[in-house]
């Protein structure tokens, strides 16, 4: 006791001698786009003059399109960048409140385009990472721009981008009663649309393989829904499930691309099955009298989320990838469907129907923290961007002139916007990054 008093006394004496720093806690920040400057790239030869402008435009559109960045107009610039190797005048960029700066140079020789660039943190007076150089064909200049935007996004946010990616979807045209549907593929921003099938048969729910070279989809070519797999490069296809008296639909690849899960309707009952693509052998994963459909693997391939009406209403469940032991995760009002596991593995996107409206929402994999991001006459079919940051979905408008179109929204619920397509579109599926 006595010695403790002595020790305490000396501790107090010693602590007085040190000036403790002022401690502040900040809990309230702001949510706003980060202003960045992207001066026109330096054209290192005359053949690259047009590209120097176009590249910066596409890169800026990619960044601004996320809702996380705001481009400072070039008319506000104090500094001009005339050489890729010239030092950065940080004070000039701070003066216009540019928090990030992108500089670059482009050269074109024959069919080859070379782009080099650097990213700077203006207020830290330092470069973010090191400079990079991309080379490609002139025809693929947009993809180079997307790749540059992915690097810029990653350097600033610390997360991977999603600009160098594609979307496969059902292109729709014609009036509501006589709508023609065909598979199409495009860049994530709606550019470079290519059609994979004709409009003779109804096609539904295309899904990319993890390597991005194959697409699963459902076609009514035989009069009944059947699952097909198509090679994106050659457009060759084959049917995967063709048993008499059955209907197969809602397919999706496993993360390793070797197996698929799908729904099979047989004798009035719909269950989830697993198929090995190499052998064609199928195995039943559910055996309830209710309807089980819309399966989606977790990123590690260990679990499957699906929808079922076994409780009397349509809800979401998670089961092991080997089947059995399903656990319900949705408990809110309304009906839940079309669940899709996030590439990050932490969230599940879904369609919800409640009180006469459709919503796209997200929840944790245990069903907690449910958030509805959209609301309209008909929203459905979410798909995740490769970095798990954005959700694309189908929105259909009401009435005889109603049409289906693609929309995207940030998982925070901000930045809801239509995805430009030549005609209407539905059932989008995002490819992996760089595929």
């Amino acid at each position, binding site marked *: 006791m006595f010695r403790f008093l002595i020790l305490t006394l000396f501790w107090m004496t010693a602590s007085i001698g040190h000036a403790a720093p002022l401690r502040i806690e900040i809990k309230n920040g*702001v949510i706003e786009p980060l202003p960045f400057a992207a001066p026109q790239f330096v054209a290192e030869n005359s053949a690259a003059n047009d590209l120097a402008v176009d590249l910066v435009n596409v890169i800026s559109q990619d960044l601004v399109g996320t809702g996380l960045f705001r481009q400072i107009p070039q008319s506000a610039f104090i500094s001009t960048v005339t050489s890729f190797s010239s030092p950065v005048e940080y004070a000039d960029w701070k003066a216009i409140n540019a928090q990030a700066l992108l500089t670059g140079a482009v050269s074109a020789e024959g069919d080859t385009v070379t782009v080099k660039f650097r990213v700077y943190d203006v207020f830290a007076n330092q470069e973010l990472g090191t400079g990079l150089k991309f080379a490609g064909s002139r025809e693929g200049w947009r993809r180079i721009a997307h790749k540059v935007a992915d690097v810029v996004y990653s350097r600033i946010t*610390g997360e991977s981008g999603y600009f160098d990616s594609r979307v496969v979807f059902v292109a729709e045209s014609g009036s509501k009663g006589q709508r023609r549907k065909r598979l199409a593929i495009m860049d994530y921003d709606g550019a470079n649309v290519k059609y994979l099938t004709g409009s003779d048969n109804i096609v539904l729910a295309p899904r990319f393989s993890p390597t991005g070279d194959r697409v699963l989809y459902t076609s009514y070519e035989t009069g009944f829904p059947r699952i097909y797999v198509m090679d994106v490069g050659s457009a060759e296809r084959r049917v995967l499930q063709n048993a008499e008296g059955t209907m197969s639909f809602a397919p999706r690849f496993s993360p390793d691309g070797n197996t698929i899960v799908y729904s099979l309707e047989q004798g009035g009952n719909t269950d989830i099955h697993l198929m090995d693509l190499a052998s064609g052998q199928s195995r039943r994963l559910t055996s309830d009298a209710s309807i089980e459909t819309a399966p989606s693997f977790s990123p590690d391939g260990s679990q499957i989320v699906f929808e079922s009406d076994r409780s009397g209403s349509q809800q979401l469940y998670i089961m092991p990838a080997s089947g059995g032991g399903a656990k319900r995760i949705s408990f809110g009002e309304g009906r839940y469907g079309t669940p899709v596991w996030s590439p990050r593995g932490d969230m599940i996107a879904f369609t919800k129907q409640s009180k006469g409206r459709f919503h796209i929402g997200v929840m944790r994999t245990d069903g907690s923290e449910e958030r509805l991001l959209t609301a309209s006459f008909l929203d459905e079919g979410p798909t995740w961007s490769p970095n798990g940051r954005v959700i694309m979905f189908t929105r259909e408008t009401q009435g005889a002139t109603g049409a289906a179109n693609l929309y995207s929204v940030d998982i925070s619920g901000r930045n809801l916007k239509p995805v430009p397509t030549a005609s209407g579109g539905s059932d989008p599926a995002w490819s992996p990054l760089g595929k």
Partner: protein
Amino acid sequence: MHIGHYISGGAHAGLIFWALFGGMFQPDPIPLEVSNVSVISSEEFDAITAAYQAPAVETDAPDLTQDAQVDPAPDLTSQPDEQVASLVPPSRPEQQVEVTQPAPVEPLETPQVEPETPVQPEPPQEVAPDLPVTAAKPAPRPADRVAPEAVAPPPEDATIADDVQDSVTLSDAGQVTDAPEQEATAPEAATTEIITEAKDPPSGAPKTSLRPRPRPAEPAPAEPKPEDTPKVNSSSVNSALAEALTDDTPKGPSGPPMTRGEKDGFRVAVQQCWVVDVGSEAANVTVTIAMELDKNGVVDAGSLKLIASEGGSDSGINTAFSAARRAILRCQKDGYKLPIDKYDQWREIEITFNPEDMRTR
């Protein structure tokens, strides 16, 4: 002479020995309350308690249907006497009695048994009036910027700036002054929360009426935890003594301490530049940054360092640190406005950036 010293030393030693080991510093024993009891037999106890026992209560009510005289009285007000007989089912002849004007039946006296703890009856559910659907609080105005305080959209011709100022131009009369023309500025429009499409406008009608909350229970006095008591040994005492004696650092910050208002002013100055990406992994990371400032309130950029973090991966921590560092450097402009006479108080600052509340917006 020495004998006196020996006697005095021995006496003092004895006194110290008694003080240390004789129980002088021992706490007094906890006093016990003592009361006298007497031992009695169980028969005596029964005899004593018998006088205080409540009379036995018959819990089984007699079967009143067996006694025609205590048959429930017919409803004399709603049924005429002539029709009562026809209401009796014919299969039960034992209950077919002559219908006369019965004497009023005295209610049975039933003993009241008090429950051990009175149960508060459930209050009737109050139904809120059907109010018109009006927002009790105006819905946040959609804006690209989400900030702690809402800001109305600036005028179209105003430049976005932190301060608000009106435009100044030459008057119609063409008076020439030395003052330069001044552009109108206003802060950027902001809302206080993310407004998704799915959020319905708030209804003005409350769902249920709120009852006042019961008085909170007094907090129990905190008991010192055993592990809070530092373990003391002679080496730690010696090292603390040595450290205290050899410490030659300047003693304590001079001047009065920072007021709450001064701290809040600094906090607000930094937080208005702290941009949080609520959908990113960095929004799950709390970082603490240490820094040093000069007397003009300018941050020494080289002193900025991450001293603590909580949650997230390395990538998320790095992104959260970058955003926090950017906020500190961007909002200082020519230096944070801090009281120069308290420089020793804010020469070193540690700021914790905690985005927990931002995620729920």
